[in-house]
C-alpha cells in the first residue's frame, strides 16, 4: 500500500481495512437487492418504474 498517504482511513490496519471495505460493498449490494430485486409486492410496486428503467429483471 504505497498509496496509503492518500488513502481513506490510512490509520487502520490492512486487515481491518479489508473488512470495512467488504462490509461497505455488501451493504451496497444489500440495498440494491432490497429495492431492486425484492419479491415483496409492495416493494416491487413502489419501485416499479425504477426497476424497468434500470433493466432489472421484473415481474
Amino acid at each position, binding site marked *: 500500500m504505497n*498509496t496509503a498517504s*492518500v*488513502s*481513506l*482511513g490510512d*490509520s*487502520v490496519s490492512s486487515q*481491518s*481495512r479489508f473488512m*470495512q*471495505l*467488504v*462490509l*461497505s*460493498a455488501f*451493504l*451496497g*449490494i*444489500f*440495498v*440494491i437487492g432490497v*429495492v*431492486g*430485486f425484492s*419479491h415483496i*409486492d*409492495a416493494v416491487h*410496486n*413502489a*419501485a*416499479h*418504474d*425504477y*426497476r*424497468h*428503467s*434500470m*433493466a*432489472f*429483471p*421484473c*415481474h
Partner: protein
Amino acid sequence: MNLFRNVVFIAAIAGLVAGVVLACMQAYATVPLILKAEVYEQAGGGHEHEHAAAPAANAADTNAMNAMSAAPAEAAAPAEDEGWAPADGFERFAFSVLANIVTGIGFALVLVAVSEFAGGIGNWRQGVFWGLAGFAAFTLAPGLGLPPELPAMPAADLTQRQIWWWATVAATAAGLGLIAFRKSLPLAILAVALIVAPHIVGAPQPGSFETPIPEGLHHQFVVAVTVTNLVFWLVLGAVVGVVRGRFTGTATSLRDSFA
C-alpha cells in the same frame, strides 16, 4: 470503523447526486415509454400487474378499461391481488425518485469499496473511467442477455433471471478488474473468458416472444435505458472522485497504470 464511515459518507453524497440526475432523466426518457406500454398491457388483458388500473389511470386508458370490464373473471380473483401500490401521478413519481436515490447510494457503496481496493478514485477523470466500468458491468453486460423490458413483455422465471443478472455482473466486473489491474496475458485471457461466459451459458428466455408491445416502442426503450444509465454511472464516478479528492485533500493522479 473510520474507513467505513468515510466510504458511507462519500457514497451517500455521490448516490444522492447521481440518483437525482437519473430520476430526472427517467422522468423524460423512460417513464413515458413505460406508461405507453401499460396502455398496451391493459388492452391485452393485463394479466400480470394492473396497478395502472388505479382510479387515476390516463384518459387514454379508458378504452382499455372498458375492454377489461368485459372480463370480470380476472377481477373476481382477489387472492391474486398485487398488494399496495403507489397512486399514479405524484406518489408514483416520488417513490421512483426515492428508489433512484437509495439504490444510487447502494451502487456508490459498491463502487467506492471496490475502487478503494485498487487505490481509490483520485479525481473526477478517474471517476469517469470507473463509471464506464460500472456501466459495462451493471448495464451493458446483463442488458445483452436480458434487454430492458417494458410491462406486458414476456419473460422467463423471475428468480432465474435475477440469478443470471447477478452472476453476469460479478463475472464482468471480475473480468474488467483483471484486465485493468493485472499485467499478465494468461489473466487477461481468463478475463475475456469470464466476460464472455455468461453469454455462452445464455440468459433464461421466455417460451414465447409474443407481445402486444410494438417493436419500435421497445427499441426506443432499450436506447433510453442504456443512455440514461451511462450518464448515471459517469456522474456517479465523477462525483465520487470529486468528493473523495476533497476528503483526502489531494486530487492528484495516484495510479500510473490506469486512467
